[in-house]
């Protein structure tokens, strides 16, 4: 059995590196992006192999799905002549020098990894000791929303900043999204699938406290439904002018800060969840985070601001 698993690990690793090389070497940008999506999906298998199911879920939804959709959307914006761009060559000497430099850096990092001790507890033992008081059975969720809630607070902050940046960069003039009517089959698909996706997002959210899953997975899955609605023309691109959407964007951040400050009234430190309330607070925070993450990712996909001052022109190229 171990021999089969080793063969699997070898095939997986070779596939990953070959896909990465393919992404960067393929002449057609469209193919390159498709390979990148396959790379993300293959990464999620690697996460599963390393017992990182939480990461596998996020990678499949975000790394492969959403990043791929973002890239394809941008490629669509960049007009078709951008599709085949011959990469200017650095000349054999230049390429060799670049490869040597990258290879040397790799060897140095590889040597450092090689020197790792075989056994290393890290912070795992401390997480295990305090897991019972975290309010979550899934250690990854416990770390995210309790032990290192600072990280998550800052992360949701990063998401909000990203929305502001994207919004500032691109008033959505010109082509919004494909104006092609979805057709009966796609419309039927969306009609059946989106409600189920909403349910699955709720399920991932619920599961997150004691098994792989949580706000990030749920938010990413919900965002996928939003993107599907967006590209099939079932909903207009988010109108950031609308108070509801602005509210949804900052909902997670505000709730996180509010909870962090509120617990201080009980004599706790900032973001130090009281043991008795931890489970409830985590579930509440995760629910609000899910909504914010989903709306942020959809806005990032839509890739720009639509407002009264810059009404989107019709999709005619």
């Amino acid at each position, binding site marked *: 059995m171990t021999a089969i698993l080793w063969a699997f690990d070898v095939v997986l690793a070779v596939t990953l590196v070959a896909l990465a090389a393919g992404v960067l070497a393929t002449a057609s940008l469209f193919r390159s992006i498709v390979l990148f999506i396959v790379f993300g999906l293959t990464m999620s298998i690697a996460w599963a192999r390393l017992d990182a199911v939480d990461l596998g879920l996020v990678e499949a939804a975000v790394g492969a799905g959403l990043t791929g959709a973002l890239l394809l959307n941008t490629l669509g914006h960049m007009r078709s002549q951008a599709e085949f761009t011959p990469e200017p060559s650095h000349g054999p000497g230049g390429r060799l020098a670049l490869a040597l430099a990258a290879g040397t850096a790799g060897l140095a990092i590889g040597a450092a990894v090689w020197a790792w001790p075989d056994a290393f507890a890290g912070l795992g033992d401390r997480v295990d000791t305090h897991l019972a008081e975290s309010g979550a059975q899934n250690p990854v969720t416990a770390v995210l929303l309790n032990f290192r809630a600072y990280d998550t607070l800052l992360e949701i902050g990063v998401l909000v900043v990203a929305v502001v940046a994207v919004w500032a960069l691109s008033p959505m003039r010109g082509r919004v999204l494909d104006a092609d009517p979805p*057709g*009966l*089959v796609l419309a*039927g*698909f*969306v*009609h059946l699938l*989106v*409600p*189920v996706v*909403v*349910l*699955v*997002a*709720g*399920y991932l*959210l*619920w599961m997150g406290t004691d098994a792989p899953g949580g706000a990030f997975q749920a938010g990413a899955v919900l965002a996928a439904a939003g993107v599907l609605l967006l590209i099939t023309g*079932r909903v207009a691109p988010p109108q950031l002018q609308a108070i509801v959407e602005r509210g949804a964007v900052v909902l997670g951040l505000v709730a996180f800060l509010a909870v962090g400050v509120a617990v201080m009234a009980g004599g706790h430190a900032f973001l130090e969840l009281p043991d008795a309330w931890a489970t409830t607070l985590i*579930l509440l925070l995760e*629910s609000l985070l899910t909504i914010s993450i989903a709306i942020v990712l959809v806005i990032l996909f839509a890739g720009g601001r639509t407002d009264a001052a810059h009404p989107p022109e019709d999709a005619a190229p």
Partner: protein
Amino acid sequence: MGVVLPLDEPRSPRPVSPVPRLVVRAAVLASVWWILTGGDAGSWVIGAPAVLAAAVTSVALGRPERWRVSPAGVARFLPFFAWHALIGSIDVAYRALHPRLPIAPSFEHYEIRLPDEGPSRVLFVNVVSLLPGTLSADLEGDALTVHGLIGGTGTIDRVKALEVRIAAIFDCDLSEGDR
């Protein structure tokens, strides 16, 4: 007898109330939630709002249609589907592995008789792609383009037979389809 599922009645003179649709869909989605969580009673804290949100989404996305599902039609369809999906796969697998690749692909055209835009059509067009040698390649109005892997008149015959089975699920009358 048929279970009335809320969806479309294209020529209905009165607007149809969304409430029965909402209730039926919420019930269906609640059973999906039950399956997902393995019947965990505590999960309804998240489950109830999630089911409600999903049901509202479903109703908001659909047109106010009304359609019926005949349990007898479903009961007759399932073995038909299972058998033909199996045969279809074995057939393609055989052709793919055969050294001489015995295929003769062609496009065929078919006029759909199932009612316009309804869920029966969506099911029909999707299932066509799972049956032996047929694949729905395009749809414009009532005109379905089928890609046949083996060609010949068999392609259209199989599609026609499927349409009758689908019509039985939804209690549709195919004879008035040429409106």
